[in-house]
């Protein structure tokens, strides 16, 4: 249990300006971008690994739960302290510790924001590829803990592919280093992989060795319009089978098209039933070949197709696409986007079928569902907007989300392709994972026997 003495002790560790028990502050740390709520008893902003370790030792000794938090942009309640206790706001540990480009890597603290890291890498000609819609605000720690990804994952993979090693503070306060600076190592179980995607339930990440890539010389964006999302889904399957690997492959349905046009009227997307945005990157020749192949493959299915004229148009469309999910709220002043049931993934072949099912669910519940997302890797975001003051809307929303989750699982898909389980999706873990969940529970017990790290998450 937390008490005044323990708080005093922790205040001494981090300094008085880095700890707060103000009810106002606690309220501000009671949520992320999901609908999950939980108020912490104290918020602490550590500045070093040693401080994290000291705090965790106290928490361990006194059975106090600890929930790590990056920028709080999560969509699953991951950083929400369901049992009160301590929230560790890691955003002040945001330094780049080392830039080691000869080894194609950088060492960072977890609080650094994705976009800030990329801005720092750019002058050297490198980048960190995973690019979630929340790049401008989310932290590397949050990305690693959620194994987040984004529009480029169809070519570049998820955050996992870029984590070579980690420094982690374990549940008892012990500081452990996993992985190494080598590009390959098979020494022991891959604890790095275990930590990536563990959502703060197994340890607190305090440093990461991150692989970076050289910025491609050239890129081009293709807009392909379709009469309906299902046709777009078919085109995606065909393009991916043609051997070309686009660096992005995004779908926008008609509502999202409207939302983007409202958010940034400069963009003026054609009002089609669905649009696919493809990006190809690489050398000039590779890009040219890729563009030609995509255009050819979409012919017959697409109602219109064109390439972005310049870098400016490209940057604008990606900037708007990143925030499209939230921009849906602009379509109707009475409604707000609610992130529930928003992150399913299905095997690529099932994409057209999943799109059709989502449409059916939308009609059945009489609830507009807007579809967008990283269709190139089968990841669909289903965006729902409701009147936040209507109980009936909330009921419809939750029922539709439940149906979407179960439909995806039935197709061999997943309830969450990138946003994480948190507590928003923990109830589906048994259905989705079967007895593999028991292994997860066993691991959790072994590494966090007292269950102090982010309790109530991931079904463990």
């Amino acid at each position, binding site marked *: 249990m937390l008490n005044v003495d323990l708080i005093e002790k922790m205040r001494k560790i981090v300094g008085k300006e880095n700890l*707060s028990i103000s009810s106002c*502050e606690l*309220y501000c740390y009671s949520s992320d*971008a999901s609908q999950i709520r939980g108020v912490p008893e104290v918020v602490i902003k550590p500045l070093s690994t040693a401080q994290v370790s000291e705090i965790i030792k106290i928490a361990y000794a006194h059975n106090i739960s600890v929930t790590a938090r990056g*920028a709080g*942009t999560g969509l699953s309640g991951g950083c929400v302290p369901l049992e009160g206790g301590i929230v560790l706001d890691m955003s002040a540990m945001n330094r780049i510790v080392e830039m080691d480009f000869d080894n194609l890597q950088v060492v960072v603290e977890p609080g650094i924001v994705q976009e800030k890291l990329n801005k720092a890498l750019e002058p050297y000609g490198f980048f960190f590829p995973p690019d979630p819609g929340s790049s401008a605000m989310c932290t590397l720690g949050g990305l690693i803990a959620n194994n987040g990804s984004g529009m480029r994952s169809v070519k570049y993979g998820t955050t996992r592919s870029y984590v070579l090693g980690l420094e982690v503070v374990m549940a008892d306060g012990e500081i452990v280093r996993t992985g190494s600076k080598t590009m390959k190592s098979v020494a022991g179980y891959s604890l790095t992989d275990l930590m990536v995607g563990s959502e703060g339930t197994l340890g607190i990440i305090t440093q990461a060795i991150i692989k970076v890539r050289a910025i491609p010389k050239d890129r081009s964006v293709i807009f392909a319009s379709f009469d309906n999302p299902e046709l777009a889904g078919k085109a995606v399957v065909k393009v991916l089978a043609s051997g070309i690997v686009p660096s992005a492959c995004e779908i926008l349905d008609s509502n999202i098209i409207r939302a983007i046009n409202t958010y940034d009227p400069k963009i003026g997307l054609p009002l089609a039933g669905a649009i696919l945005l493809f990006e190809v990157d690489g050398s000039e020749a590779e890009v040219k070949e890729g563009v030609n192949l995509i255009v050819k493959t979409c012919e017959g299915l697409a109602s219109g197709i064109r390439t972005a004229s310049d870098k400016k148009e490209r940057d604008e469309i990606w900037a708007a696409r990143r925030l499209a999910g939230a921009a849906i709220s602009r379509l109707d002043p009475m409604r*707000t986007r609610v992130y529930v049931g928003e992150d399913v993934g299905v095997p690529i072949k099932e994409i057209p079928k999943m799109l059709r099912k989502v449409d059916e669910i939308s009609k059945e519940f009489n609830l507009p569902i807007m579809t967008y997302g990283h269709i190139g890797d089968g990841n669909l975001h289903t965006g729902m907007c409701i009147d936040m003051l209507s109980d009936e809307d909330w009921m419809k929303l939750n029922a539709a989300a439940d149906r979407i989750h179960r439909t995806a699982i039935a197709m061999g898909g997943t309830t969450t392709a990138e946003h994480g389980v948190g507590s928003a999706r923990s109830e589906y873990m048994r259905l989705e994972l079967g007895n593999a969940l028991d292994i997860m529970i066993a691991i959790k017990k072994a590494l966090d026997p007292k269950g102090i790290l982010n309790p109530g998450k991931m079904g463990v």
Partner: protein
Amino acid sequence: MSNLDLRSILKCVRCGTCRSVCPIFEQTGWESASSRGRMLVAHGIYHGLEADQDVLNSLNTCTTCGLCEQMCPSGASPTQIVQNARHHLVLKGKMTDSQAALRDEATSKGNPLGETRYRHAWLKNASDIKEHAPYVFFVGCLGSYRYPELTRRTFDLLKKFDVTLIPEEVCCGSPLLRTGSDPDFLISKNLEQIKKIGAHTIITGCAGCYTTLRNDYPDGLKVLHVSEFLAERLSEMNLKRLDIKVTYHDPCHLGRCNGVFDAPRKIITSICELKEMKTHHQQSRCCGAGGGVLKGYPDLSLALSKKRLEEIPEGVDYLVTSCPLCRTNLQRGGPKVEVIDILDLLEMAMK
């Protein structure tokens, strides 16, 4: 709860976009000092969160610079909600000492500076105040009391174009509106006189007055910033080209909040070379003074000013701005070049 509309608070999806641009959050690093935090606090107040000093600090450290609102993907209005939440609490008697001081001074003296001197003391010739005119120059409190010289010179220029003054001008109401108090009595006092004068257009040299006159006074009055008024009359002013380079600070309440970007730049570029600051136009960084922050949280305000001054490009001779409040705060930050008003620049070119 009249002023705290739950539905507009719930427009916020807590995506955190604003958190990554809010200059105050950047300074303190605590959620309660970001716009997302302030939206949550407003929500909390609605649901009975006690309005203690921390709540007041959260709400009152917003400069109302509007950057969050501009970037917000979901179309929420955090700046407006902050002002509404302040107002809601003031109505219940909950406010900071600085809010109370602003309100009391403005109520008793007609200006938030506590000045009791005659407002137009800078005016050399009382007969320049005409009974009727198509244009009035709204001086503002800082212009009247802190920059009387500049004001006199501005008016000397304006009066050639059929511009008069409001004989008993009082504060436009901006400091009260921003900090949650009721400005109605000030607004009516100014309005009555403007009506008597029969003016169709108000000209002001202050960004705070500008946004208030334009958005919080009843419709039907045209409002121009001095720079807009003069940018249309450059040909009549016989300007000579100056061999200097300057940079320009967009006041939030003039630029981002009201879209006045071009007129000041038109004046500058017709006189000398303009080199933009690191952020400008819609993305322009706040000087840190607005929303009652300079008065209520001078240290925070100073830190923002210093950050803004770091954005001055190399090799410029002056930092030009078009708002006395911005100028005051930028001056506090210890600029490496002199901070001048756009009028000062015009005058240099007229001599």
